């Protein structure tokens, strides 16, 4: 009898306590999922942020072109307040759990993105693998674009940034945790892809990358340079497509590329010794040219590639940013206790020495 009393007491206790914790129960069709977010700069002094949220409306039919979204915008003094205010504009609960793409407006990114990034990493429901990008001309217009062939709301922009969809050699994918790391690290600087839109087709174009210092965008590279940077920094992002390289009259498709660099410090200067090993297939080459004089085409390509790579590295050096991580590598070998003061000068004086070695896999189906 006593045992049964004890058991029933425990069971009642359990039941009573479980009733306290059901507050989180909210059905999935009472939530609005945020599928894209944009942060812009306004001219208003008191309300400097303009937050745009793209909410996915659930619909019964999943078919091409039937996805519906709703866009909400608000101007606020701080991002957290703005999001809370937007909750009162819609009839369902706003859920950031599926927010995989966050855009910064062009003018906003040229000022200071640190606060926004800190807000994002503090929130528990924004995933660390969310993709961040710069929207040009401003984030609101890019977010408002509704492609005609989308199946799921917001899916098209998502797929640009996920590895199992398009694998383009012009796209850099930057996740939130990588951005936080690069903003705070001593010796590594952030980069962000730039999203523009094509008004006639209502689709997105992502083929440029923006380089940042610890706060703001410093320079934006053009598509060719973006592709070259992609090839040189293959360890940064995951998609394994490297694109092609042109040096008249040859166009070569790069199958695989591996970059190794060493930092050598002599008394006079610091030198970066970079060795690139590539395996290519020829896409455009004059007929029979490779089989008759193989060395000539390879040498020309190697020369041209090394020069272009050196020019790009020098351009990035002139802008004063370091997305490769030369600073970090320098710190490994030669300690630098006072990094923030000493490194910019050292970086300005670095010399680059690039050597390329190309292995030809084939010339396609014809000679």
């Amino acid at each position: 009898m006593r045992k049964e009393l004890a058991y029933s007491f425990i069971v009642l206790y359990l039941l009573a306590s479980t009733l306290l914790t059901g507050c989180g129960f909210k059905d999935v069709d009472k939530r609005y999922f945020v599928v894209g977010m944009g942060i812009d700069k306004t001219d208003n002094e008191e309300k400097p942020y303009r937050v745009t949220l793209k909410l996915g409306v659930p619909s019964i039919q999943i078919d091409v072109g039937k996805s519906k979204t709703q866009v909400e915008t608000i101007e606020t003094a701080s991002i957290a307040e703005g999001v809370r205010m937007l909750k009162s504009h819609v009839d369902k609960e706003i859920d950031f759990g599926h927010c995989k793409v966050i855009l910064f407006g062009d003018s906003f990114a040229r000022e200071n993105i640190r606060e926004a990034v800190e807000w994002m990493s503090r929130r528990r429901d924004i995933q660390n693998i969310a993709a961040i990008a710069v929207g040009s001309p401003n984030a609101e217009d890019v977010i408002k674009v509704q492609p005609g062939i989308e199946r799921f709301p917001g899916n098209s922009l998502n797929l640009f940034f996920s590895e199992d969809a398009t694998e383009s050699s012009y796209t850099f994918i930057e996740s939130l945790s990588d951005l936080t790391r690069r903003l705070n690290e001593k010796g590594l600087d952030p980069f962000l892809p730039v999203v523009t839109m094509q008004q006639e087709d209502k689709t997105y174009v992502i083929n440029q990358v923006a380089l940042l210092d610890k706060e703001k965008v410093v320079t934006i590279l053009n598509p060719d340079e973006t592709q070259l940077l992609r090839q040189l920094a293959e360890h940064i992002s995951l998609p394994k497509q490297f694109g092609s390289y042109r040096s008249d009259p040859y166009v070569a498709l790069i199958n695989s590329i591996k970059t190794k660099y060493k930092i050598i410090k002599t008394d006079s200067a610091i030198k970066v010794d970079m060795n690139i090993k590539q395996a290519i297939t020829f896409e455009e080459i004059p007929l029979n040219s490779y089989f008759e004089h193989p060395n000539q085409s390879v040498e020309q390509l190697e020369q041209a590639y090394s020069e272009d790579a050196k020019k790009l590295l020098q351009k990035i050096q002139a802008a004063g940013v370091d997305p490769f991580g030369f600073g970090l590598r320098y710190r490994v070998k030669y300690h630098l206790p006072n990094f923030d003061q000493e490194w910019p000068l050292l970086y300005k004086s670095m010399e680059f020495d690039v050597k390329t070695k190309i292995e030809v896999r084939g010339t396609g189906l014809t000679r």
Partner: protein
Amino acid sequence: MNRYVFYHYFIVCFTNLVMLVPYHLINERFSGSVMAIILSPFIGAIMLYMFTNALTKFPGEGLPEIFDHFYPRWLVSMIMIYKSFITGTSAAIVLSTYAVIITRFLNPEGNPYGIVLVLMVVCAFAATRSTVTVNFVLEIVLILSFPFVGFVLYKAIKSPLMNWDAVAIVAEHYNKMPSLLVIASATFVFTGFLNLSIFNRTFPTNFRFKYRWLLVLIAFIDLLMIFFIPIGVHGTEAVEHYVYIWSATADSTKMAYGFIERVLFLFLIVLLHLALAFTMVGWHMSIEFLRYLLPNNIVNPDEAKTPLRSYVIAGGILLITFSCMFFINQLSMFQLGGYFMIIRMFSEFVIVIWVYLLSKKKVRRDEKRISI
């Protein structure tokens, strides 16, 4: 039979590594953590060998019975109360930290006290089972969780975010002297053998400890991985911005081809099971220590029917832990956790050396008895 020693070692190793220890180690990563990590396997190995050698002289007996051979009852009772307090507190810290993690990630609008209460009731129920049952539950939970832990570690190492330069930079600070807190945190990982002070009762009389060096080796590799991987993934500076460092690291990887994309949820579920198992073992040991104080105590590692005193003691531990939750918030939990680890390190040294000396005393006493 030897595998149960491995399980007890590893539950302490895995659970503590992702709860309290990384916070203190990463706070001081430029001033002494690496040296502490290098020193700790030696300290851990010495303690392990001393304790297990001592236990082979007392087959089938737990700590209360060992002390009972030599000392009067009042002294042994005081030691038992102290040990039960230490073990119960470490289990309670792990459980409440995990309840806070649930409140952050999985159920942000739930009542945190309610969640903690339900978790504690389940653990208290599991802790009142017999010693043999607790061994089996631990085995099953570890076998089920181990592949997932390995998967998360593998994903983190192989992700493209892993930057070995940052790891090299931190590792170069090995010549700084560590503070007491950091040594206590690092050696905390190697102290799984103290669970044997109760679970020695379940081992048969001809049991011998084998492969002890393997225990220390695996725990050391684990400690290395769990200290350096977040530094590689998050860089040397951003890593101290996060409160729960391993949750953020697990969240930075991506399972592109499944239907669950964030590795974080897999990691949290596995952590739930590990935390529950650890708390169950810790509270079971507390209950067994406190049962020594009550009269008419029968020691049976495989009890068919749990006596009422176990339930009463479990209820008492539950109430004390729950009421402590009201006074401690997230920040003070980390600070108090630090002090607790230092106290625990010293008391463990004392207990290990004491038991070793007692075993030597027993050998001398037995030889004297034989020769008479």
